[in-house]
């Protein structure tokens, strides 16, 4: 089935789980780099489907973030709320000092799992839209 949304993530678990079924734009990188990728999509007309700051774990704590966006129809029609939301999310992310520059693998794995589970809770809603 072809869906009208795509998943932007820096979380390999999300790519492994959803990569075959949905369009997953996966690239490793920091939390903020991921938000900047989402911003570029929004500037090109994409509409946010999930909030860029999901989860109460802070942007400087978890290295992983996944965002669902509805594919855009080009840069000439922009979704206002998405532009404001992603820019505010970047501002908010910038407030925090990166807390765990060195992170043991087991901690990284747990963060990846939490990010995946946050997104699982939205997958049924997104596929119905």
């Amino acid at each position, binding site marked *: 089935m072809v869906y009208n949304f795509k998943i932007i993530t820096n979380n390999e678990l999300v790519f492994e789980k959803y990569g075959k079924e949905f369009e997953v734009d996966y690239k490793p990188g920091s939390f903020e780099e991921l938000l900047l990728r989402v911003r570029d999509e929004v500037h090109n007309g994409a509409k946010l489907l999930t909030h860029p700051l999901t989860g109460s774990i802070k942007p400087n704590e978890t290295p992983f973030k996944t965002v669902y966006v509805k594919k855009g129809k080009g*840069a000439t029609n*922009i979704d*206002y709320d998405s532009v404001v939301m992603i820019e505010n999310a970047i501002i908010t992310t910038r407030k925090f000092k990166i807390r765990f520059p060195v992170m043991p693998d087991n901690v990284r794995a747990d963060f990846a799992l939490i990010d995946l589970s946050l997104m699982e809770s939205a997958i049924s809603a997104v596929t119905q839209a």
Partner: protein
Amino acid sequence: MVKEIERAGIPVVHICTVTPISMTVGANRIVPAIAIPHPLGNPALSMEEEKVIRRKIVETSLQALETEVDKQTIFEVKY
């Protein structure tokens, strides 16, 4: 930013893609742009055609600066 320039006593026209943002940040003279990555141009067109559009947007912006306004006003560009 636009409010601070206005507050300093300098009339300012805000060429902005997402006009609701412009309204929220308090611009008084607003000219809609084409798109966020290229507000005053359209790469799909030739250089010359782009310049024609850009000149129209800038001309509308100058007219906005030459027009008295008492509240937030959007100056549509006639392409």
